[in-house]
Structures are given as C-alpha cells and as structure tokens.
C-alpha cells in the first residue's frame, strides 16, 4: 500500500488538461467506442450488404428511411476517423517527429480542428 499520506488532488472538474493530454485520453476513449460500437456496426453492415441482392437493397432503403440509424453509423465512423487521425499523430511522434512541447501542442490542435472540419463536411454532404 502507499505509505505516502500527502493528499492527492484529483478533482477531475478542476484539473486543466493540456491539449496533448486531451488528445491522448480521447484517443483511448475513442478506441473503446470503436471496439464496442463501430466494429459490430461494421460487421452488421458487411453482413447485410453481402448476404444477397435483396438484403443489400433492403439495407439501403432502411438507411434512407431511418435517418437516425444512418446518423448513428456516420457518427460511429467519424469516431473511428478521430481514432485514426490521433493514432497517426502518435505514430508520427513514435518516429521522433514533432516531439517538442510546441510541436506536440500545435499538432494536437491541428488534429482536432481537422477532425471537426472533415466530420462537419461529411455530415453536411450526407444529410443536407
């Protein structure tokens, strides 16, 4: 057990995360989401779209009429997209590129903005 009895300050509402730490924790959270929601959705989409021609047509009609389900699917894939973007950023940093404090900060901000813009664009193209 920990013998150090100094208080540990762990009030999550008051801790200010640097943006590079924010991208790290959201990469993990998005990974969990992708595993438990996007992957089964992906499997279901592949299953129904390759089963038979009538099943393929039923699926496309279903998604055209049920915008909520389509929205959930697009949202799930956009979270996978976020996981990919922040993952590529981590891979680049693993190659010792952009490891300085300033570079990490700007690449994190860039990643988040790039994700927001591309996601908004995809939602706009699909729903409007």
């Amino acid at each position, binding site marked *: 057990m920990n013998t150090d009895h100094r208080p*540990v300050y762990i009030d999550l509402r008051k801790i200010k995360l640097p943006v590079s730490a924010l991208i790290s924790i959201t990469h993990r959270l998005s*990974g969990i989401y992708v*595993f438990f929601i996007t*992957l089964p959705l992906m499997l279901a989409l592949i299953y129904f779209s390759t089963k038979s021609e009538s099943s*393929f047509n039923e699926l496309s009609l279903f998604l055209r009429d049920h915008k909520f389900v389509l929205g959930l699917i697009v949202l799930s894939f956009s979270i*996978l997209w976020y996981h990919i973007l922040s*993952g*590529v950023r981590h891979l680049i940093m693993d190659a010792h590129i952009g490891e300085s404090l300033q570079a990490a900060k700007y690449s994190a901000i860039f990643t988040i903005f790039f994700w927001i813009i591309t996601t908004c664009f995809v939602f706009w193209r699909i729903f409007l």
Partner: protein
Amino acid sequence: MKGSTIWYLQRSSAIINLFYIVYVFYFIYSSELTFEAWNNFFYSSIMIFLTLCFFVSVIIHSFIGLWIVGTDYLTRRTIGFLSYRISKHADIFRSIYTVVFSLFGLSYLVVSLTIIFK
C-alpha cells in the same frame, strides 16, 4: 511477451488496419456502389485474404489497447481515487473486464469468419 514486442505489434497492426480501411473506403467512395460491384469486390480472393488479415490485426490491436487501458485505470491506485472500499476489488474488476472484451473480440472473429467463408 516482451514489452517492446507488444509495442511493435500494436504499431504494426495499427498500420495494417489503416491501409485496409483507407483501401475499402476508397473503393466505396470511388465506385457506384451496387450490390454486384460490392459483392465482386468483397469476395475477390485478394480481398478475402486482406479482410482476414484485417480482422486478425484488429483483434491484436484492440486486445493490446484495451488491456493497456485496463491495467492503467482499473487498478487499486486509480479506483482508490474514487473509493477506498471499492478499490480493494480492483483486480477482480480488471479480470472481469479482460474476460468481457476478450469474449467480444472472439465473437467478432467468429462473425467475420462466417461472413468471409459463407
């Protein structure tokens, strides 16, 4: 397994997943998506091989990732920040969590195999 092996497995599986997803999305985006085109693409022998590699690689990647998340957050120390009493059972929580996500991963593998070899 050595830590460095796990580190390299995590990164190389990530790159395999990335290329597969980019490839499939490029096909979906660039073609008129009819059943015939999609079916011919998905059940071509090269795609069967790639899909198989993809799902094995996804299972490896997500097992390592979720296992790391578990050993980071479902520990006596981390749960202890919330409640000392609950933190004493942290090892049990982590075991349950590991079993649950392993079963999920196993079922994904079974479903993907039945889709590929229908």
